[in-house]
Structure formats: structure tokens, C-alpha cells
């Protein structure tokens, strides 16, 4: 894989702002690192669940929520590196195929948190093709902001399991840190779903 296809030109914060516009009943899970900062920058919310570790787990947390909250819409926002560590999860999720779940991979083709080393995505592995091969109903690559708006509208249509790679600029923006107290974020989310702490 000699050819370099790293990322794109979209601004990650503009992308996430667009995705979360008018977010209604949307439940959001974020992969650790920049994806969490982007979602926090767009505004904290009781319906956000931020991961700070367990790399590769964001999409599986999203699946668990999608299965238990079938009337709501679930959006997983994560990076290409985080999803690459949960590569097999795409197969697991495809078998369940919840129609209320969308995975948005912010793909800058790099491991941004650790010094911008080029990732597998940056070296030619296109995660939307992987999702398509696994049987996701919708799998696409988005390079322009109007494509992000189309994805945002599709989240609420519930017409099948979706993954989109969104090609963003490889850059580290100022960090906007979400709460780090895992118990607090958990209980806040669960209470928003109508469940009390034990």
C-alpha cells in the first residue's frame, strides 16, 4: 500500500457541528481522543457518552445502546485509528444490523493523539469499504460538507445500519475536554434514559 490517501480537507469541528445540528433525541457515543473533544466543543449534553479509554470500543458501546433504545437514534463519532482497533466489531455490528445506528468515522488518515503517525486508513484501508463488505446497509465516503448534511438527515430516517468515513484535515485543534468522571457520565446518561443509579 504505497499510495498515500491520508484524510481530506474538511474541518473536523465544522463536520461534528453539522452532524449534531438540531440533534433531537440523538444518543451520541464518542471514541477516545479528538472525536471526544470535537463533540464536547459542539456542546456538552446528557445524551453524550464519552470514552476516555478502551480504544476500539466506541462502536460496540453504540451497539449496546442501539439494541436497548430501539426508539432512539444512536450516532457513534470516532476516529479512524479508534475504529481500526475495533475492526472486528464492524462484523459483529453488521450481524445485528440495528437500523437506528450510524457510525461516523472522522478519518484524517493519522493517529492524531500520538504525533500524527500515518494510520492504516491513511495508507489505503478505506473503512467504508470494510463496512460495505461486512453488509452495512449504507457505507459511504464523504469528502464535502454537503455530504455531511446528507448523513445528518439520514440518521433520522432509520433506513438501515450506516457507516460513513468523513475525510477531515489532519490537524490537532485546541482540546475541549469532556468530563472525565466515568461514573458521572454513566449516571447522567442513564438518568436521561429514565434509569436511576443503583
Amino acid at each position: 500500500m504505497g499510495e498515500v490517501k491520508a484524510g481530506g480537507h474538511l474541518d473536523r469541528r465544522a463536520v461534528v457541528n453539522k452532524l449534531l445540528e438540531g440533534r433531537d433525541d440523538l444518543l451520541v457515543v464518542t471514541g477516545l481522543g479528538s472525536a471526544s473533544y470535537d463533540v464536547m466543543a459542539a456542546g456538552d449534553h446528557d445524551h453524550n457518552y464519552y470514552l476516555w479509554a478502551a480504544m476500539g470500543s466506541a462502536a460496540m458501546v453504540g451497539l449496546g445502546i442501539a439494541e436497548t433504545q430501539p426508539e432512539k437514534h444512536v450516532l457513534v463519532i470516532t476516529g479512524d485509528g479508534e475504529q481500526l482497533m475495533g475492526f472486528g466489531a464492524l462484523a459483529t455490528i453488521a450481524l445485528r444490523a440495528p437500523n437506528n445506528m450510524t457510525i461516523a468515522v472522522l478519518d484524517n488518515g493519522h493517529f492524531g493523539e500520538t504525533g500524527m503517525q500515518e494510520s492504516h486508513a491513511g495508507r489505503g484501508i478505506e473503512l467504508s469499504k470494510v463496512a460495505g463488505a461486512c453488509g452495512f446497509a449504507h457505507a459511504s465516503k464523504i469528502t464535502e460538507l454537503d455530504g455531511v448534511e446528507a448523513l445528518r438527515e439520514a440518521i433520522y430516517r432509520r433506513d438501515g445500519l450506516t457507516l460513513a468515513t468523513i475525510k477531515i484535515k489532519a490537524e490537532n485543534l485546541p482540546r475541549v475536554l469532556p468530563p472525565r468522571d466515568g461514573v458521572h457520565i454513566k449516571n447522567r446518561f442513564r438518568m436521561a434514559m429514565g434509569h436511576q443509579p443503583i
Partner: protein
Amino acid sequence: MNLALQGNPAQVDWQEDVYRVLKNHDVKHIAYVPDAGHSTAIRRAEADNEMTSIVLTTEEEGIGYLAGAWLGGQRGALLLQSSGVGNCINTLALQQMARFPLLMVITMRGDWAEFNGWQNPMGQATEATLRAMGVLTWRADTPEEVEPLLHGAATMAYNGDSATALLLGQRLIGEKKWVK
């Protein structure tokens, strides 16, 4: 090369007990990587319309999944083999930091009369690594122990927002031998 299970004839159907205890604790989600010792629970869960069964490509996927299910308001359990515990170690941080209930039922390899020495390193390290990551552990070596110990582990997981594991020993499961 065929492998055959030489099970010890047991009065107590401990495999059925596993499913029944999970059901009694209102478990709605079974995430698993298959093992012969879990076959009854998996088959029963797959046939149970009130349970969602999730087959995983690797065990740590189950930790994320069950965290999500708990966020959505439902209980689950993770069924795995001892070798899969090694795959879970880093992901257990999610449980420790968020403190959601995580019940693991683990069939042991590399534990007793193991024919495949390559199973021994992880089998011998299973309980120690779980404990190192803050998981409460028990082990069952006889059929009669399975039901009370699993009930105890489930109670402490769901009432204590804890990670708990029941190890099902190889003496319980039965010796696996090479068969020509």
C-alpha cells in the same frame, strides 16, 4: 484429527444452571465467544425471544457492548473462554472507571489435565489477571457449585456495579483428549 469431550457424568446439569441463573437475574443480553462448556447457555439464549445474543469476533467487544446495554437500561453477561480473558484486559478499564455491572462466565483451559500446553500460559494467569484489573472472582470445580457461585457473582455485579467472574474449572467441564 478429532477432538472429543469426555464429560464426567453429573447428576446436576450445571450447563442448564448457568442459563437459569442468568435468566433469574433478568439478564437480557448474552455476549459470547463460543466454547463447548457454554454451548447450552448459548443455545438457550439464542432460542430465547427475551434475550439478545451477540456473537463476538473477540471478547473485549463484549465489554463495550454490555456497557452500552447498561447505559440503555438492561443487564447482560459475557461468556468466554479463559484465553479470551487476555483479550479483555485493557478494555476492563471501561468497567473500572464507569462502574457498570459486568458479569463474566469463563470456561477454563490450561487449568487441569490440559492436553494442549499452549493453553497453559493464559489458563494459569487468568484469575490473577482478572484480579489485577479489579474483577472479583470465584471458581467452580464441581457441578453443585455452579448455581450458588454464579448467583453470588451475579448478585454482586448487579447490586454493586462491580465486575465479577465465575471460572468454570476444567475438572468440572471434563477432560478433553486427542482422539485418532
